[in-house]
């Protein structure tokens, strides 16, 4: 599959502080790639380098096989820190921003109107930005990222400050983009949304990638072999199971096996003990748990 983004050993420093520390990853065409990490992890710096806004101190970044500044017109960007001129009227402003992406003025205006219509903002086209609600402004900014029909979208914290309705709009847009073969790179704190959208994920902490792969791969890698178990007639747990911890979750049990014990081994012991197993399920960690574990491990390994 065609590689759209290729980041190799990227380093970005601000004075003596290293914000991005030798990270490498790639994003394929039509993929939704998520860059996750706590505040100050280096996500936004990485994205700014990808957009050609910052220059890398070391390493190489390529978009569509070229330098980022050469393909700005192919990328739609929604930055984390975003806003519009508050005193400007919406449609002329969007038209202007569209022309900066290379659209002729008439086309930029038509495209801006089409996106405003899609977001239910057509009645606000001649109003000043300051008259729009926060949510409306967020949608207008999203329109700016989309109006030149880019081959790739880079969305930095796209769900930030959005209500559930607008969150769904963004999720639908990302899904549509993937279906139409566009590439999406997004960063977010809201892991629940990312979990539903991302094909592959890179977790960044302290400027380094601490986990990288598909969601499935990460779930397997960070699984502790947790087990959800339901016994018939609320029967007690048999003694002598090799578990570290067990707790009730409603009518079920959640078991945390001892290190080195597989879920299969637990199941075998339960059957041998004659436990009336009604439901038995291996529980994989959520993205949030993976995130926390990866950050914790990374902090420990770096002695923080």
């Amino acid at each position, binding site marked *: 599959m065609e590689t759209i983004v290729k980041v190799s050993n990227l380093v970005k420093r601000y004075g003596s502080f290293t914000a991005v520390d030798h990270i490498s990853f790639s994003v394929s065409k039509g993929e939704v790639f998520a860059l996750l990490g706590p505040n100050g992890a280096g996500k936004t710096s990485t994205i*700014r380098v990808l*957009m050609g806004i910052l220059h890398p101190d070391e390493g190489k970044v390529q978009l569509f096989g070229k330098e980022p500044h050469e393909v*700005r017109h192919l990328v739609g960007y929604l930055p984390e820190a975003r*806003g519009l*001129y508050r005193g400007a009227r919406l449609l002329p402003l969007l038209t202007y921003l569209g*022309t900066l992406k290379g659209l002729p003025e008439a086309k930029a205006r038509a495209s801006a109107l089409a996106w405003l219509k899609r977001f239910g903002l057509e009645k606000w086209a001649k109003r000043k930005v300051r008259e729009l609600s926060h949510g409306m402004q967020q949608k207008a900014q999203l329109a700016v990222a989309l109006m030149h029909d880019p081959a790739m979208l880079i969305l930095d914290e796209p769900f930030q400050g959005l209500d559930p309705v607008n969150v769904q709009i963004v999720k639908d847009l990302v899904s549509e983009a993937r279906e139409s073969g566009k590439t999406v790179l997004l960063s977010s704190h809201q892991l629940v949304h990312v979990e539903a959208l991302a094909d592959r994920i890179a977790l960044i902490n302290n400027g380094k990638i601490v986990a990288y792969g598909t969601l499935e791969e990460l779930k397997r890698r960070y699984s502790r072999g947790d087990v959800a178990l339901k016994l018939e007639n609320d029967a007690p747990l048999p003694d002598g199971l090799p578990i570290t911890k067990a707790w009730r979750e409603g009518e079920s049990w959640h078991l945390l096996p001892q290190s080195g014990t597989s879920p299969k081994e637990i199941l075998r012991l339960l059957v041998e003990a004659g436990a009336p197993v009604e439901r038995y399920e291996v529980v994989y960690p959520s993205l949030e748990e993976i995130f926390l574990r990866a950050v914790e491990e990374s902090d420990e390994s770096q002695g923080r």
Partner: protein
Amino acid sequence: MNWQKVFRVASYEFRTNVVRGGYLFATFGIPLLGLVVVMILHAINTHSIAKVETTKVSTGHIAVYDRSGILPRGAPLPRPFVAVPDFEKAKEETAENKFRALVLIPTGYTKQHKVTVYATKGIADLDNVVRQLGYLLLYARLSPHYLPAEAQRVLQPIRMNLVLITKKSEVSGAGRMFAGYVLSMVFFTAIFISAGYLLQSVATEKESHLIEILLSSLNSMELLWGKVIGLAGLGLLQVVVWLASVWYLGKYVSIGIQDFEMPLEQLMHPDLQVIITALVIMPLGYITYGLLLAGFGALGDNFRESQQFSAVVSFLAVIPFMFNYLFFVHPNSWVVRAFCYFPLTAPVAVFLRLSAGPVPWWDLGISFAALALGAAVSLWIGVRLFRVGVLLAGKRPSFKEVWKILKNPA
């Protein structure tokens, strides 16, 4: 550099700022105010000339008691003065408001030049009374007859027309002085209004967080140059409107400032040196100030902070105005030359120096070269600060950090 994008930014900046209330007022309101001021000055001038012909103390006589013998005995005094023979009686009558005032010319007047005025209340046009008394006393010495009104008009303060000459040329000194001074004000104001808009534009983009969206479409140099060009258009339009207003007014109005007669129209006929200086100083001055202000403006987190950063630059620019006197009286002094050779004071200083008279071309050349160097340094500093500053958020960098940015931008 993608010039198409640069001109799109320039066009947007021009179109959005040209309709701002503040700009419209500065561009069209100030000439209108100027018109009002000039009309008032014109009216005052006309009135003051007319007044000489008709001036009379409107009510009541002023008694004069002469102990010095300066006034011819027995000769009648012109209105409103009345010679009185008895000082004490005249004083009583003044206290009873029969006279507006009583003037005592003492014995030693010719040595001391002092008179005493007795009055029951302040005299509204005391200056006028004293001036007329002065003429009275002077003419009394010169002529056995008091001078007629025509002679008084001739002796009104003289208005001069100064002509500056060299072996090859002859220019109106008043016109040149006025042109130089007015042009320094016009260019200074236009440069700073445009540079101020540049600062505001940068600060607004940063404050509104639009800057990253813009920088995802074009690089910081393209953005900065677009702004510089677009807002230079504002400054240029302003200068054209102002000078056109002056030209229009000059066709009808001639104003007097102090002792000089200054037809405004002379502003439209400046000599070659003033024209060349204007053509060089306007763009270089704008680049010098504009880029510095944009660069420092980008360091602030909002417009107010940006203004604080740029206040230093703005302050330097107005310093020559504080030394006005030196420019007119000692235009070739080392202080004046220093102001003309320092890039941040040169735009104003050179025009002020030109007000006093022709400046050697080599000397002017040094100023132009210094300003060109200043523009290049401003470009270097402004672009570096802008590139890094626009992405700084929530933190005002210290001077040490600013220095680091200059040495090693992103």
